[in-house]
Each structure stands twice: as C-alpha cells, then as structure tokens.
C-alpha cells in the first residue's frame, strides 16, 4: 500500500502537480495538511485527496462558529473524503461519509512539556494506523490522538509508540 502526503504550501504548485501525480499513482492514498490560514486556494485541492488534516488555527480562522459547521462546509467539496481537525488540548474532530461528525477528546495531560510537532505526530499516528494496523478512520484518529497526547508530555519524538500503546 502506498500513501502520499502533502504539506499544503503553495496552492499554485500543488494545483498543477497533484492531479497529475494522482493520475499516475491511482492506487495510493493521498492526504493533505492544511495548516496556515493565509494559504488561499488550498481548499480547491480537496477533490484530489482522500484525507485532509486541518490545523486548529485554520478552523479558528475559517469564520465558522463550530467544528461541525466547518466540517459540513468543506465536506461539500468532496463527500467521500475524510476530514480531521487537530485541536490541541481538545483532541480532534473527525468527519467521514459514515461518521459525519465525531469529537475525539484527549486524556488530560498534567504538564505540557513540548507541544512542537504534536500535529505532525497526529498525522504519523493516523497514517500508520490506517495503513499498517488496519484501523478504520475513527479508530486511526483515536490512535493518533493518543500518540499526539503522549508527544505533548515529552521533549522531542523518541519512543513515542512504546509510551502511547
């Protein structure tokens, strides 16, 4: 199984490249991270992806008042895709065609040691859970929240899986 993940940086480049890459590797799963609210045009890429990760910041700048409304709105662009907002201490919000809205809370972290890369850790947890552990979208998101929560409680990324599982 192949998984191709893109960091949503320059919309113009991705708009040109992604459809053609997708066409040449049709059997791969494609995911996109949309992190920075000022990168206009990234939403237009949604039809080319199977999984879209939004940062909490992106949602907060979206103008929508609840995660549910935001996810409903983006879902119209590609009803079969999975959408996830990584929401820091609030865990994650997940939306797919069979589970239109699900909030996955975190377990409480006593002390936040180092939150840098928590969203990146979430993506790793989700990708691996879907690809290798055979988990459903919701199951993978739960695993990813657990992994990201473990990450926040430690410096760096060492031994994350052992501590989270």
């Amino acid at each position, binding site marked *: *199984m*192949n*998984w*191709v*993940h*893109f*960091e949503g*940086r*320059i919309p113009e*480049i991705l708009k*040109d*490249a992604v459809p*053609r*890459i997708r066409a*040449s*590797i049709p*059997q*791969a799963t494609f995911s996109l*991270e949309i*992190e920075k609210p000022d990168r206009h045009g990234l939403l237009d890429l949604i039809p080319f992806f199977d999984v879209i990760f939004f940062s909490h910041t992106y949602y907060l700048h979206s103008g929508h008042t609840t995660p549910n409304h935001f996810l409903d709105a983006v879902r119209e662009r590609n009803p079969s895709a999975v959408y996830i907002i990584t929401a820091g201490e609030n865990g994650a919000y997940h939306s797919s065609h069979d589970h239109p809205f699900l909030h996955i809370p975190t377990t409480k972290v006593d002390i936040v040691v180092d939150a*840098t*890369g928590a*969203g*990146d*850790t979430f*993506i*790793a*947890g989700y*990708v*691996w859970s879907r*690809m*290798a552990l055979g988990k459903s979208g919701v199951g993978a998101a739960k695993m990813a929240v657990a*992994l990201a929560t473990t*990450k926040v409680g430690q410096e*760096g*990324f060492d*031994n*994350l*899986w052992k501590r989270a599982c």
Partner: protein
Amino acid sequence: MPHYPEEDQKLRASNVTTRLGGNVPNTLNVLHQVVAKEDRLVLVSTFAERDSSQRLTDKLEEMGVEVAGVWRDDCPLNPQSWILKSEQTGSRTIVNYNGYNEILKPQNLMSAVRKNLQPMNYSGRSLQ
C-alpha cells in the same frame, strides 16, 4: 542561556542542542519508529545547497528516510528556528528563518514523486 540577553550585549549560552524539524520531517521521525524494514519512507522537498543540507539529509537517512527533490545552489541555509530558552524564567523566544520562498516547481515535484513512487517496485509510502 542563564537569562534572556540584553540588547547589544554578549551572552554565553550554557547549552546547545539541535533538533530536526519541519512538518513532514517530524511526521517521518515518528513513522520511522514503527515501519518494517521493507517499508520505504521518502521525503520529497527543496533543500538548500548540498553542504549546508548535509547534516539534515544525513539525519533523515539515519532514520531510514530517502531524500529526493531539488538542491538549490542559490539557497545558503535550509529553513530553521533558533529557540532561545531562558533558565531564569523558562521563556522560549523563537527566531525563525525561511530565506527562500517555496520553490519546488510543479514539474520537479512531479518527477521526484514519480521517480520514487513507481507502483511496480514500490512497497512503502512516501511523504513530501
């Protein structure tokens, strides 16, 4: 450092650590801890000129991550952050550098991904 420096003053740092960063390198750092030997992790990106990128690409390769994309001779330094941590207050002041403005042409991106992700001989995954 013992405390946050005064402007126009010199201060000796008490300790220095370096860490790999960036969204996708972070994700790959977490993934490399669980993948099987036969799995492939590939980073397709734009890098600063070779000498300056060596440490970064060495570190990625140590994790079993293959690197591909474009090395730009006109970019002296990869994007990075310097975090000034004060022992006195625990504050973290971050100075970020991203000297080149994004970079990878669609054609380069496509050819690097295609080259590294041929369905016939590929059994892993690729992350840009």
